[in-house]
């Protein structure tokens, strides 16, 4: 996607806000210096003056920083609206086109069956996007899970992998579980649906960002005495070190992903992080760098 006009305007506003801030700070500093030169002999007055100038300069600097951050944020928000519009309207357009085709034309039975499968695919895609948006809204507001139950992580991981296999038409064990954990070995307290969504997002991402050669390893392992980690490793496009944290921000998408064919809304990992926090755990990423694969880990406290 090329930058659109509103994006260009924003970039200009960022530069403008920055320049204005720096200019004002420079004026304050010059005034401060001349003040010091004028009053360097009167102790208390000098001290008070310098202090108030420091406050002024600090305020200006903070104001500039906040302004720039807000402009950036609304830029990401715009990109999100575009992505969601696309993710909702594309499958809808496809379903509508095929339904009208079925109504208007006499088609052979196998073509009709193919069309119905295509429409089912599209409605799944639509449902995933909607679920993702609803879940982001739910996990983004409350801090804790409402009615926690016992959840077997091994089972959750198994379910997520078979789901991803169906969704991405994987047949040759491209996604595998390392070291077969036993059922009931890792039980956490929480919301099963949310945990399934979080692990599914990790596995989905791993497959999506792998390109043509999908090799994903999922590992469930104990960390210390009381925690368990689900880590998902891929051999895909990888992440540069300064983006390892940013990818968990809501609406954030890797610049490289925006130019590739990988579709997404920028919600997935922010949901993973929110779910981790709601369960008293954390989520983080590791990568040996761009084009060298990455590992995403969801760490949760075990049921005591």
């Amino acid at each position: 996607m090329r930058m659109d006009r509103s994006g260009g305007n924003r970039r200009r506003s960022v530069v403008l806000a920055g320049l204005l801030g720096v200019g004002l700070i420079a004026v304050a500093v010059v005034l401060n210096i001349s003040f010091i030169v004028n009053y360097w002999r009167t102790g208390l007055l000098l001290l008070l003056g310098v202090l108030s100038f420091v406050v002024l300069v600090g305020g200006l600097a903070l104001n500039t920083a906040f302004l720039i951050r807000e402009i950036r944020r609304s830029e990401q928000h715009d990109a999100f609206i575009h992505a969601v519009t696309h993710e909702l309207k594309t499958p809808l357009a496809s379903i509508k086109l095929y339904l009208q085709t079925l109504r208007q034309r006499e088609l052979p039975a196998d073509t009709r069956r193919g069309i119905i499968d295509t429409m089912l695919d599209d409605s799944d895609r639509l449902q995933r996007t909607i679920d993702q948006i609803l879940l982001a809204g739910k996990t983004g507001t409350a801090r804790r899970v409402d009615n926690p139950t016992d959840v077997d992580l091994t089972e959750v991981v198994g379910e997520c992998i078979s789901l991803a296999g169906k969704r991405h038409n994987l047949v040759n064990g491209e996604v595998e579980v390392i070291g077969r954990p036993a059922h009931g070995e890792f039980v956490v307290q929480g919301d099963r649906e949310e945990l399934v969504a979080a692990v599914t997002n990790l596995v989905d991402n791993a497959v999506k960002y792998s390109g043509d050669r999908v090799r994903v390893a999922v590992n469930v392992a104990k960390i210390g005495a009381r925690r368990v980690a689900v880590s998902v490793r891929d051999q895909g496009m990888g992440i540069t070190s300064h983006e390892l944290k940013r990818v968990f921000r809501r609406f954030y998408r890797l610049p490289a992903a925006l130019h590739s064919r990988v579709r997404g809304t920028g919600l997935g990992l922010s949901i993973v992080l929110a779910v981790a926090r709601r369960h008293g755990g954390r989520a983080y990423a590791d990568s040996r760098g761009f084009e060298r694969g990455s590992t995403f880990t969801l760490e949760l406290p075990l049921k005591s």
Partner: protein
Amino acid sequence: MSRVLIVEDEDHLAAGLKLNLEAEGYAADVEDTGEAALARLVDGGAPAAGRGFDVVLLDVMLPGLDGFEVVRRLRAARQFVPVMLLTARSHTDDVLRGFEAGADDYLPKPFDLSILLARIRGLLRRRRWLRGDGTERAVDADEYSFAGRRVDFRNQVLRRGRAEQPLTLMEATLLRYLVQHAGETVSRRTLLEEVWGVRQDTDTRTVDNFVARLRRYLEAEPAHPRHLLTVRGVGYRFVAEPDR
């Protein structure tokens, strides 16, 4: 048989469009990136008469080069095949941006199959009128001269001395309509209905955009037009020989 090039990276939509176009008796090819489409339509910078395509259906949100940029490059390479943009982005600014880039029509997703097919027929029909090889002839003459300029509607070219300015299909159709009604004031609404064949939902600023483009081609001073006059609050009037 008319040939349509579908440029769409969503496999499902591309397959659905191809199925329907073929059922309507068109030949349809699919490309899934802007780069590939440009390679098909522009041959080393020289257009080979549209490379055989009569209409291009172009998605806007493509990976790599987006649809707007693809039309812009097509027009820059003097490839004037009719282009219809298909996109989920239906905001007025997006639509205007598409027309500014040189598109001939714009259809937001999700669309009605019958409307899509009608619009494709419209583009093909206008192309035939301009080429003058159909039975339906909209205008008597294929050429028109005024104030030292000659417009060749059949080949979509504006000539002035040795200089040649190619026109897009919609530019040529609009100019032809205004020329046919020389001296009369034509409203923006009428132009939208008669030239673009749309009744509602299209912004009348589309017309303003096209008039601005035509002025750049045929006015000595586009800011002070003498041939393509604005009639405030109504529309436009074409004047071949201004009084002063």
